[in-house]
């Protein structure tokens, strides 16, 4: 049976979500086309993850070696090239992540396997791979039909597929020996660097309540904060608010602040100048509240409320307190 190989990704002792997302996709394809799913784990110690992986794979290949504890293209490339040459899987999947982006092209070159990157969809309509991607900064969708090949490589965009927890397989675990470390190019992993401490990273939030000039004065911010708290959101702002120092600059959304893509972005009293729009227009759902019906924010928002935010906020906050 043809195999789909899924390269598991872990960092600092945790299995990254993308692995489960890819496994979800792999199992979908496997069911549809009668393929088997093989997970591949490279690291120092597979035991913390083997149970999770075992549930969603038919087979797991494990290479344990201290040199693989932290991702490093050099040894990973060596090991994976060997595994893929031996196993000859039909499709090998990685996440389009810092690891996948780094590893996949070199793998593709070393093994001369065609690679499609940053896929948001994969299918085998006939017997070649068809990949869905986005090009031109997400403004255009591309459907690529690859030429027939015995093997394919693909990286998957995080967040495109759901984690599949329903599987209850019991994979066989095969421990493969570490290869002889010959032909390494000398890249060394030195360590992780924690970023500078910010009070909050707004780009991580699922819901953002964002305030603009319409808030009027800093004394009014608590009203917005209360609302944010009621719905479990993080407070962010447009430029003028950060400039005036009413909120720290780390909360600013826009071209000179942060670009965010939360599930829900609620813009309060923000006019929506293009610099701000650029920072939030790809949010999942955008709700804008503004007195001015002509405010540019209404062009980029999905839902609009033309009203005084100080009338809307208290009532809206109440709706969440009830439940």
């Amino acid at each position, binding site marked *: 049976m043809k195999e789909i190989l899924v390269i598991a990704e872990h960092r600092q002792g945790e299995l990254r979500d993308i692995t489960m997302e890819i496994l979800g996709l792999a199992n979908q394809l496997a069911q549809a086309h009668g393929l088997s799913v093989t997970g591949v784990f490279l690291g120092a110690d597979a035991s913390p993850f083997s149970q999770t992986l075992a549930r969603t794979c038919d087979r797991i290949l494990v290479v344990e070696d201290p040199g693989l504890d932290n991702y490093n293209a050099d040894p990973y490339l060596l090991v994976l090239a060997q595994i893929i040459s031996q196993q000859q899987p039909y499709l090998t999947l990685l996440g389009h992540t810092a690891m996948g982006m780094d590893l996949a092209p070199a793998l593709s070159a070393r093994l001369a396997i065609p690679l499609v990157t940053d896929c948001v969809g994969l299918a085998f309509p006939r017997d070649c791979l068809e990949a869905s991607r986005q090009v031109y900064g997400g403004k255009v969708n591309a459907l690529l039909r690859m030429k027939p090949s015995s093997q394919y490589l693909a990286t998957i965009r995080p967040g495109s597929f759901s984690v599949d927890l329903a599987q209850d397989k019991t994979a066989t675990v095969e421990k493969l020996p570490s290869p002889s470390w010959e032909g390494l190019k000398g890249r060394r992993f030195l360590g992780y660097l924690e970023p500078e401490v910010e009070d909050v990273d707004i780009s991580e939030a699922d819901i953002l309540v964002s305030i603009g*000039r319409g808030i*009027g004065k800093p004394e009014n911010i608590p009203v917005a904060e209360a609302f944010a708290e009621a719905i479990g959101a993080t407070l962010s702002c447009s*430029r003028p608010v950060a*400039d*005036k120092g009413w909120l720290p600059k780390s909360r600013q959304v826009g071209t*000179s602040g942060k670009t965010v893509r939360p599930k829900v972005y609620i813009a309060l009293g923000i006019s929506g100048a293009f610099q701000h729009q650029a920072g939030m227009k790809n949010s999942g759902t955008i709700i804008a509240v503004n007195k001015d019906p002509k405010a540019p924010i209404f062009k980029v928002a999905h839902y609009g409320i033309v009203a005084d935010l100080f009338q809307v906020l208290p009532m809206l906050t109440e709706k969440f307190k009830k439940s």
Partner: protein
Amino acid sequence: MIPHRPMFWHIEYVWLFYVLAAVAGGLFLAGVAAHVWVWKRAARYFRIPFSQKAVKKTLVDALLGRRVFQGNMAAGAMHFLLFWGFLVLFIGTLLLAAHHYVHPFLIGSLYLGFSMAMEIGGAMLMLGLLWAIFRRYIQRIPRLETTKEDALVVAWLVLVVLSGFVVEGLRMAFQHPQWGGWSFVGNCIGNLLTISASESLYPYLWWVHTLLALGFIAVIPFTKLFHLIGAPASLYVQNTPKTPLAPEDETVETLDLADLVFFDACMRCGRCVEVCPSAGVGEPFAPRDFVQAMRLRLWMEYSPFGDVRFLSRGHEKKMAERIWYCTTCRACLEVCPIYGATFEAIRKMRAVAIEEGTQVPQILIQTLDKLYRYNNPWEASKKKRAAWAKELDLVDLTKTEKETELCYFVGCTTSFDTRAQEIARSFSWILQKAGINFGILGKKEPCCGDIARRVGEIGLFHEQVDACLKLFSNYGIEHVVTSSPHCFHTFQNEYPEAPFKARHYTQVLHDLIVQRKMEFEKKLEVTVTYHDPCYLGRYNRIFDEPREVIRAIPGIRLVEMAHHGPDSLCCGGGGGRMWQEDLDGETKMSEIRIKEAHATGAQILITACPLCLIMLEDARKTSGLEEELRVMDLNELVAEAMGKGNNI
């Protein structure tokens, strides 16, 4: 005995005097030469053309001190005393030298007149100095600094004058000349002293006075006193015709002689700081700081001895990032007694930064990129430029053979900004109503190049110039009317000799009123106030036409803000600031201005520039004045009165 004055009375070692005089003179000349040396090395071109007009202006301004009086009678009077006191004493000393070495003539009544004149001179100088001390150290006028150099210079001169009078007094106390009354000050002092004291003390005091006086002369070029030479030089050079930078000239536009002389002649009087809108809202910029920093930098770079102003070292302020604050509003030139155009020097330093590339603010890079690709600094699209005219049925001069009497050059901001588009709609409506045959350039309209020029991107400016000239020539456009005073100013004053005439729309509206082509259907019973845009008012002295247009509207009552006409406060949008919001601090210039408008009690603030319109509309919101005051362009007001819309 015939009135006269014996030279070197009671003084021995007279030869020493000549030696000291030579040394002092030598140092003075060396100092001046050092300045000329630096100017020669640093200036783009070292050329001093002869201009009769400049000579005249220099003499008048220097002798009357006109610019110092402007807006400040006390300062003018004080400076007059200092200037003339010093000049009289200086000329008197020269006459004395001529009398002694060439041919004696200061005898008799001529001598008496001479004596009196010298006394008056000395008294004037002393009075001026005391007044200066009073202003700087007791009144503590904010713009006057109190550095070591300021204290030393004034104290030194006070001692020179004082010692001079004391020495004279001593001499008169001994000599008791009959004509003593003509030297009234010395006479007074003389009467207070005894003869025995005077004789023995006299030579010592004479040498003290001599040393102080000669020392003073020697030190002139090494302190801010250089302005004795520098100021007249600056007055002259600033008033000679400037050499515009030719498009083929590949050198970067850097400082020229006028700038360098200005920097060295700057007395740090601080009038520019008083009127600078950026300094006024607490931004880390002031014209004086820039000038002094540049002066220091140039000396450090071009002088083999470093900065010769030994007392002002260490005044360097970080100017590299701060050159982007200037809005080029020209308020500094309006008040600078030596016609220093700080904003022009800033523009040249911006050109240097643009060439070098790494000190240019990122936000400006994006703006210039748009300008380069899409002919406007606002949006990445050429197509949308004519969107405002979609339903208006206007003549597109690039698509028609029709002859028109004028071309309405809408401008980038008016074309793309939703608020400013009203200017274009209103003006077009007015022209149509008045039966004027006009057209627009539609999508093909390029940028006039103003922002490129202000920000220092000369290459891009010349590209826009070429594009505009080519377009005008292709479509036979000879008469251009602009929405923006910036476009108007650039076309009128900064384009090379071109066969087209440029006007601003306020001039056209004014003409229509004078020619009675404008009919007002409505009476607007409102109180309005008018904001003079920098590029219309200060730059091009168009103050009256817009006001006459306003006054022609029936029912209107026009009140003036505290700062109006040449004093108008900049809205903060010029000089590239419109696209650099990150420079704004807690208070914005536009907020100061809108509050001033509000203080007049006017219901509407009228502007005549799209940048001003946007800035002031914004400020109206951030200052919480939305309910109290409206901001309108003059076109909107006039159109309303002519029966257009439903605004008021």
